[in-house]
């Protein structure tokens, strides 16, 4: 029995040495393994592989002449936890800004062909000419790719714990612009045209030119926002969106050549703030490992 025990001694010593080596290796391996681990485990995948439908409300930020206020829908599919694609469409109404109202209040009434009417004798527009040159944006939207690089949770007043994420979007924008200048207001048939042979000379009055600021406008889209999750499938969606496209919101002569044409349009940013309620489908949520 005693002789049987003797060979175990070097075996135990070897096991000890192995343990020493394995210990060091385990530490190094653990460090490397930790480096490669995600920052958060067992996290609710609140957006991954889900369809997001968001009824929303949107309004311009600091518009020049007309504020655009509307409602619409955002549809977005999240390919994973960070990448998604989607589209947004918004129907809007237009409201004069305070600046526009103040200008309109000080402009003269349109007098047309009335005797003594001086509307067209000066460069000053009548209030009707000014108002009818402004355009509206009854529909606008975008198709985009979205990146959600930040997610987290917050505690409000030490009681309400909610998940949230930040997202950034980029893509193409579009807008349908309208303006309605009556024929008796915008009655210059040849704005800016100078053709002595045809006896056409410019009238140097941009106020009776057509505004040329309607129609379909493609452009670029940038956006960013935050989802604040109320539960597993509902989130408040707060966003700032920039629809950039060529536009001439005032419909008037921008480049001071005394007539209105397409060269008066320029690439403008139309900044909107939006709020919506995101419905995530399917309603059941998954977790990470």
């Amino acid at each position: 029995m005693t002789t049987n025990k003797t060979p175990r001694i070097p075996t135990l010593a070897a096991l000890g040495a192995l343990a020493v080596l394995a210990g060091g290796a385990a530490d190094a391996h653990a460090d490397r393994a930790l480096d490669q681990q995600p920052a958060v485990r067992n996290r609710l995948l609140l957006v991954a592989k889900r369809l997001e439908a968001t009824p929303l409300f949107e309004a311009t930020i600091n518009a020049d002449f007309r504020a655009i206020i509307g409602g619409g829908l955002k549809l977005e599919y999240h390919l994973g936890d960070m990448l998604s694609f989607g589209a947004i469409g918004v129907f809007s109404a237009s409201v004069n800004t305070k600046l526009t109202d103040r200008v309109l209040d000080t402009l003269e009434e349109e007098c047309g062909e009335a005797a003594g009417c001086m509307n067209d004798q000066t460069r000053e527009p009548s209030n009707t000419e000014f108002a009818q040159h402004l355009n509206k944006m009854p529909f606008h939207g975008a198709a985009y790719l979205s990146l959600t690089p930040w997610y987290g949770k917050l505690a409000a007043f030490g009681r309400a714990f909610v998940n949230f994420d930040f997202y950034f979007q980029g893509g193409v924008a579009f807008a349908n612009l309208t303006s309605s200048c009556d024929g008796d207001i915008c009655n210059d048939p040849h704005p800016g045209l100078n053709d002595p042979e045809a006896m056409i000379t410019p009238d140097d009055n941009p106020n009776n030119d057509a505004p040329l600021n309607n129609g379909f406008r493609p452009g670029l889209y940038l956006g960013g926002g935050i989802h604040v999750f109320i539960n597993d499938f509902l989130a408040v969606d707060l966003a700032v969106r920039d629809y950039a496209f060529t536009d001439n919101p005032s419909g008037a002569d921008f480049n001071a050549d005394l007539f209105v044409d397409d060269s008066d349009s320029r690439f403008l940013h139309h900044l909107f703030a939006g709020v919506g309620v995101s419905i995530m489908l399917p309603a059941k949520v998954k977790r990470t490992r």
Partner: protein
Amino acid sequence: MRRTTTSQSLLVATVALLAGALVVGPVATAQAQPKKPAPAPAPAPGDDDEIEMEGDEDKPPPGDDDEIEMEGDTGEGERNLEADLANTTTDAIKADTDRAVRPVSWSDIVVVMRKPFLKLKRVDLMPFLATTMNDNMIRHYAGGASLDYFLTDVLAVGVEGQYFAKQFREPFDLVGRQARRLPTINQYNFAGALNFHYVPVYGKFAILDKKLVHWEAFFTAGVGFTQTEVVPRDPRFPGFTNFNITPNVGASMRFFLTKWATINLGIRDYIMVDKFEPTDRSPTMNATASQAEANAEGSLINNVMFQLGVSFWIPPTFEYSTFR
């Protein structure tokens, strides 16, 4: 003799095992902790992305346990935010040892881990830049600084000052050329305020699933003054200045970078009744500054500004006074 040899051999083996145990010790001990799982293995190549199970909201997720156990007391050791956030094994052992001697209740489980940044009795010095958000005629840029003292970790009082520079926006020119109207506007020169801050929202987020960043949101309310100056429509006539009492309210976010620096961004609404140049100025009417000021029209103004600043915290470090 044989007995002596056996004893010596056992002694050698015991020493070797002890040496091994000393090195392996921390890992082995950590693995022996009932609530501290070993570092999770990397997902096997064949694994589906990250998804393991479906919504069992009622169960507290094991990941939260990890976070709780990460809250060690590092007050005496590493004083580095990065290290605190990455803090793992040693402190977990301390925490579990402590828990073993007293019963654990649900009230001991916190949802958000201990704040890695304390503000109590610290001074926040923040230089900042700001710009107007809601004026389509004139844009103001401001440079300033605020100095705040935190009475508690969520309540602060302080002062701020800022100096403005102006830039006319496109409609200012367009209204003149297209509508033949000269806008009536005031520029802002400088401002100051006494403010109170309250921090109701605290959170953290992960960037690209790799790095955790802590942040908080706070509300501000205060009162101060703003000096504004009339921009005369006709340069023949002089402008005048106004000194307006200016309450302000706002909301901001603070992102923690280190124990002594944060990035702040927020929106502030400065509310005042400002006096504007009268519309009827001529060589015979309101020609002088005092006459114009006497007949100036007042209007309620909301000067909404976006602010971005970097805070420096004094003293640059802090001590935790409680375990959590």
